[in-house]
């Protein structure tokens, strides 16, 4: 009999504690993000597809077309071309295509670039129903960004 009342009282009490918890949550600010309207800042170590780093002064890619990234890529998803230009030292990058469909985000290209011309981007809104949309022209993307 005493067990009956003990259970009754402790049960009722726990119900009110539960209400207290949800009541507190009700008052607190919301924690969700309104995704398409708001975007979350990606963490520093997030790996998106690779992108070219622009030169601070000229805005042109810092890449000197040494081809190390292309060689280092285990998935062979980088193809690049450069040309000599009058009045410019070294080569100028004319084409940098990343086939993101096969990229494994391993980071070999970023590691092997000794000139600090490559990094992981923070882009993650990349959904598309077409395969061609993932063949990125990184020079174009760089221009669009700046």
């Amino acid at each position, binding site marked *: 009999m005493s067990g009956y009342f003990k259970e009754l009282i402790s049960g009722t009490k726990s119900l009110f504690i*539960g209400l207290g918890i*949800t*009541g507190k*949550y*009700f008052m607190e600010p*919301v924690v*969700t993000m309104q995704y398409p309207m708001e975007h979350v800042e990606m963490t520093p170590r997030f790996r998106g597809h690779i992108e070219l780093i622009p030169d601070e002064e000229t805005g042109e890619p810092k890449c000197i077309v040494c081809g190390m990234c292309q060689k280092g890529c285990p998935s062979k998803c980088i193809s690049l071309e450069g040309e000599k230009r009058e009045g410019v030292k070294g080569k100028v990058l004319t084409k940098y295509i990343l086939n993101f469909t096969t990229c494994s985000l391993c980071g070999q290209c970023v590691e092997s670039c000794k000139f600090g011309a490559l990094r992981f981007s923070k882009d993650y809104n990349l959904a598309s129903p077409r395969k061609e949309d993932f063949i990125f022209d990184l020079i174009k993307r760089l221009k669009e960004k700046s």
Partner: protein
Amino acid sequence: MPEPFRVILFIIFVMAFAGLNAAYLVWCERKGAGHIQRRIGPKEVGPFGLLQPIADGIKLMTKQLFLPKGADPILFMAAPLMVMVPAIMSFMVIPFSETFVAREVNIGLLMIFAFASVNVLGLLLGGWGSGNKYAVIAAARCVSQNIAYEIPMLVTAITMVMVTNTMNLNEIVRSQAGWFFHWHIFRLDISLLMPVAFLIFFVCTLAETNRAPFDMAEAESELIAGAYTEYPGMGFGVFFMGEYANIVIGCALSVILFLGGWQSPVPFHPAGFLGVIWGLFWFLTKLYALIFTVIWIRWTYPRTQFYVLLNLSWKVLIPISLFNLILTALQIKIFPWL
């Protein structure tokens, strides 16, 4: 105002009140659920999602009223109405304010309970008529649940009738005039268990209106949508409106019986038209506070198991409410001057 005119106005008011409540309680429910789970809830349709119920209504209305194979056409179509119509009729005797009541019926309390018992019949017929096994299981559960919870609810109601000597809802409210400690829930001099009686009544209201954590009629996770499984479009919509109307009725009854109805917490009541507004204000404030609690409870507790639910009624609520009945009778008899 001439009587027929007044009645027509009240019918329009009551239907509008029930409809708007159904529409906007869904909105409140979703907003409440959102904030309790620390989300925002509806926000896209209109400012703060306030037009969401209209969008939902249009969506439900444009759906085809499909009659499933093997369903009983008459029962299937009649069942939502059997839930909806009695709920709306019950509003006729609810005193919103001292003079703001469609019909002051002497047996108002009895009438509401009579109509409320049709609700479960509607669910049973709906579940049976749709010829779906989940619906039938849900309907059977619903009936045994309603029977179990009707007893403590009625016993508590009888206790209150014993205290107030009347079944006229407006009279019951009038007997709680004065300070807020004259409301029945605080009248420990009438019965030591008054707050407990209120709790019992409130829990029974939840169970009678099939609200979580007692929503055995719906039980999405185990019975698809319970008795509503086969209902398309507005058939489902009408069930829902009936359910929300029932919640409002249940909470209104709790407010009238225990929380002083339209009485303000201080002994101040302006005369004339202002008094009507004053009463209405207090009644609606208490009513919506209680309805908010109902929503709050739904998003706090998980659904109980069926046998736990029946145990709660037969082993806890019924004995305590019976004990309360006897205690109240003794207290009234022994201290008749109180």
